[in-house]
């Protein structure tokens, strides 16, 4: 246990983060799965967990839920130490390996989890959860006859049944078709609207980019980078196709931000505090200076490019993401 890092532990359960862990380490036999992971999911925050296969994402999730015991480190779940079962009362979990009792019906599985959660969830609300994931008509069918995709949908209903304050979704769309993936995205956005915290582990970067407030990137059992999307994706750039650029126009471009030129293509890095008025003003001024503006195109680095950049240049610290290494 690391002393001096108990700011989360001191907070009361109602205001403490949904999940907080510090310096988690885990070794399986000869394989060090998790080296040193500290992360936090705030109340109502949607956090994406990204990283290549074997980065330790599922192990970190299991340690956060008390399913795997860390060798070192500390975990608080909704303000309580994770070895206290009550810490899990407000948690919904869809495991990567989703399997539900095949001899039960979908409605019985949901009812079982409602009972085990300790919350009293009326039958009508349980049926609502099944309907939300598209299993409204299949409640009385045995899970054994379900396809993989339907079982994953059932897992989502199970994760949501006890009105959780924190939902952990480990690869929630791995068995789903495009429609199912869109449904999951809507469910996560719905949770964010309700103020439910979500930890989403997904390989589908596009989805993480669309629904997450913040992203934690794991690589080789360590946090390779963490931050809000704006922080991780860096500054926006503007690409302009211009002819007739004079000295005054060049000065005007340079006043906006660092400029690069390649023939008629000019790229300007926009300041982070841009409130949206900058680009129209620049275009108006350039036109007034006699410059012919052929095209104006905002350039944004996608999360995928950023992720690949971070994973391929592992260990090189960059300005806007924290790199943890020992």
């Amino acid at each position: 246990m690391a002393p001096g890092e108990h700011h989360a532990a001191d907070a009361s359960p109602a205001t403490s983060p949904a999940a907080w862990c510090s310096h988690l380490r885990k070794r399986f036999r000869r394989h060090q799965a998790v080296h040193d992971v500290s992360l936090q999911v705030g109340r109502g925050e949607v956090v994406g967990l990204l990283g290549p296969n074997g980065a330790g994402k599922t192990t970190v999730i299991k340690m956060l839920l008390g399913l795997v015991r860390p060798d070192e480190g500390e975990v608080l779940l909704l303000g309580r130490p994770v070895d206290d079962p009550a810490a899990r009362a407000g948690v919904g979990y869809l495991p990567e390996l989703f399997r539900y009792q095949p001899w039960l019906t979908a409605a019985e599985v949901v009812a079982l989890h409602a009972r085990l959660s300790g919350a009293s969830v009326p039958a009508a609300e349980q049926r609502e959860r099944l309907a939300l994931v598209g299993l409204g008509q299949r409640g009385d069918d045995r899970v054994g006859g379900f396809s993989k995709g339907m079982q994953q949908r059932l897992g989502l209903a199970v994760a949501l049944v006890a009105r959780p304050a924190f939902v952990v979704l480990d690869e929630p769309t791995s068995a789903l078709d495009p429609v199912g993936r869109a449904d999951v995205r809507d469910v996560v956005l719905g949770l964010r609207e309700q103020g439910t915290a979500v930890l989403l582990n997904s390989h589908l970067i596009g989805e993480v980019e669309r629904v997450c407030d913040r992203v934690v990137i794991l690589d080789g059992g360590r946090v390779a980078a963490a931050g809000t999307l704006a922080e991780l994706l860096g500054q926006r750039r503007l690409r302009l196709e211009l002819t007739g650029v004079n000295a005054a126009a060049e000065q005007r471009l340079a006043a906006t931000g660092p400029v690069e030129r390649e023939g008629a293509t000019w790229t300007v890095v926009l300041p982070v505090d841009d409130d949206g008025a900058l680009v129209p003003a620049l275009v108006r001024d350039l036109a007034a200076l006699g410059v012919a503006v052929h095209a104006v195109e905002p350039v944004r680095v996608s999360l995928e490019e950023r992720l690949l950049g971070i994973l391929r240049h592992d260990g090189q610290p960059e300005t806007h993401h924290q790199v943890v290494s020992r």
Partner: protein
Amino acid sequence: MSHQLRSTGVIALLTLREAARRKVVLALAALTVLLLGLAGWGFWRLGAELTSGEARVAASQVLNLVLFGLSLIAALGTAFLTGPTVAGETESGAALAVLARPVRRSAYLLGKWLGLAVFGGVYVVVAASALCLVVLWAVGYWPPDPVAGLLLLAGQTVVLLTLALLLSTAVSPMASGVVAVGLFGATWISGVVGGVGVALGNEGVARVGEVSRVVLPTDGLWRGAMHAFQDPSALTAMGAGAEAFPFLSTSSPTPLYLLWSAVWVAMVLWVATTAFARKDL
């Protein structure tokens, strides 16, 4: 009622429902009806061929023989049910979602144990009672102490399933069933070998049975059950060699032995819950 206690009950009921839905109940019922039918036929022939005195002695032994078959069905049934329900659920991932609930692992495991114990116990009591009624109908024999016998048989089943539960927290579902049934068989054979030792007056050989009965109390409880079901005249008829006969028992278990069996179950259950609590899922 605390949430953990309620969860134990929920898991116990779930285990019973699993046994029913997975057609385990149906399979056991079919096997039992088959065994009872064959036994009834055999006892009926026995009653027809022998004088009433001879029939009582023979019925005692054959009753114990058929009961052994029943207890074997119960042992195999519960041991092979325990593996899939505990090791199988952790292996497949079905336990992940359940144990991410505010449920202690010990509450989960105790629930499984309770469900299996009720299932195994009720099966043995119902099937053995039915067998006693069949014998009463066929040869007019009624055991001297059927209640004690039924309870000891149920106890034997509980001991074996507790062992299977411990094994299922450590090894794969298949291995746990195989090892549990193997140990059950080994203890029974050790008991028979020990009986031969007693009959021959060889202390070293007799000790084999005594030690195995302490290490795994299934055989001791089984011998107690046989003693409760057999006619006292069967022992006198067999004379000094009675100990060597595997389907007769010369004594009922002492209160100390019964206490030891209960302590054994509690201890093994404690080890199983401790091991399971430390397991990475």
